[in-house]
């Protein structure tokens, strides 16, 4: 019996050490990507190509989800607020929850599963088929040529996607509450505008989405570069990208929120 307990504790210890290694490697890889970004900044065409795959192709899912999230928020908010006779505050509710939280967080979660997994699979497969090694043989740095453009494309597109998500959400809320239910349009917008602050709400949401963009793409490129060069390894790495990104986004969101919105009434 004590032997089993010892082996369980050993297992925990092993995982802790492994996890710490992973965090350390990912951080070093992040610094490495930053250091080798000069090529992708000089040859911006590389980033453009990745921006198309990472940003433009994620547009549909982001816009449609934003619309539906906003519509649900409007509907649920209206149901509760009309009990207190303050259904005109539904605009404030929809806009604040989207701009502060749901926009950056849900857009980042969708981005991780749509674009992050694709980046990991692509880089992982390049490694498995020894394309990265071949590049190294030709004195082309794979980090500068393959990883950095994808990293920057993700970092650039994330804030834009989050902003579009919020706008579509506000539009969805407007559609449901004003057009379908019939909340007064003037008070919908004026209450929203008087309660959503540019610096406190919109800028903080924007900063959040920038953080999420860096976190998600770092995880995605690291998992791809770190994947075991087998079919199974690539599949594990892709799964890990989505799971780790989701956890990191939610944890980071709590930390950022605690810093940003403490002391705001």
């Amino acid at each position: 019996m004590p032997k089993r307990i010892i082996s369980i504790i050993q297992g925990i210890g092993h995982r802790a050490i492994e996890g710490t290694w992973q965090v350390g490697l990912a951080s070093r890889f992040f610094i490495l990507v930053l250091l080798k970004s000069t090529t992708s900044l000089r040859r911006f065409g590389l980033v453009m190509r990745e921006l198309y795959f990472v940003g433009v192709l994620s547009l549909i899912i982001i816009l449609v989800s934003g619309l539906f999230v906003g519509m649900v928020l409007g509907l649920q908010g209206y149901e509760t607020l009309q009990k207190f006779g303050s259904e005109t505050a539904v605009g404030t509710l929809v806009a604040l929850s989207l701009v502060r939280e749901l926009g950056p967080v849900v857009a980042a979660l969708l981005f991780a599963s749509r674009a992050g997994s694709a980046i990991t699979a692509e880089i992982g497969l390049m490694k498995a088929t020894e394309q990265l090694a071949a590049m190294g043989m030709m004195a082309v740095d794979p980090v500068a040529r393959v990883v950095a453009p994808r990293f920057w494309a993700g970092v650039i597109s994330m804030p834009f996607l989050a902003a579009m998500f919020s706008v579509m959400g506000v539009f969805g809320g407007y559609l449901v509450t004003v057009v379908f239910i019939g909340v007064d349009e003037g008070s919908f917008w004026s209450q929203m505008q008087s309660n959503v602050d540019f610096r406190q709400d919109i800028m903080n949401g924007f900063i959040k989405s920038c953080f999420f963009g860096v976190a998600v793409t770092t995880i995605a490129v690291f998992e791809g570069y770190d994947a075991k060069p087998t079919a199974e390894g690539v599949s594990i790495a892709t799964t890990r990208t989505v799971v780790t990104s989701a956890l990191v986004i939610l944890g980071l969101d709590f930390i950022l929120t605690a810093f940003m919105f403490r002391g705001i009434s």
Partner: protein
Amino acid sequence: MQRTTMDLWVGLFVILGIGALLILSLKVGNLNTYSAGQSYQLIGHFENIGGLKIRAPVKSSGVVVGRVVNIQFSLETYDAVVTLSIDSRYIFPKDTFASILTAGLLGEQYIGLAAGGDEIMLKDGDKLMKTNSAMVLEELIGRFLFDKASESNDF
């Protein structure tokens, strides 16, 4: 895919993104109500500010003329010192009355300015002489009960 079509799509994407940010700041947020114009500061001493917060509006006749920019406790006079930033388009006489009011029954608190009749106008950094504290519900009830009690003693 052709290089030019890709550039076109990415260009559209970036424009859409910037457009979304603009819509957020102008249509959803209150960036357009920020007056880009000049403002001047006034100081008011209040005995009790209740639930007044920084960035609360300063209104005169219901029109927003400025915002509360700072609230501090003074150790010299032992009361609250509230700094108001007023749009320079609006100037008020020296004997303007400032009181802390509540919007609606449970709404947010704001500062109401009632203009006086003085010839001299308030300048940047001036002190508001006449102030009225926020209503605190407990004090109000206490005063009411006290009045009732003294009334019944008369009989």
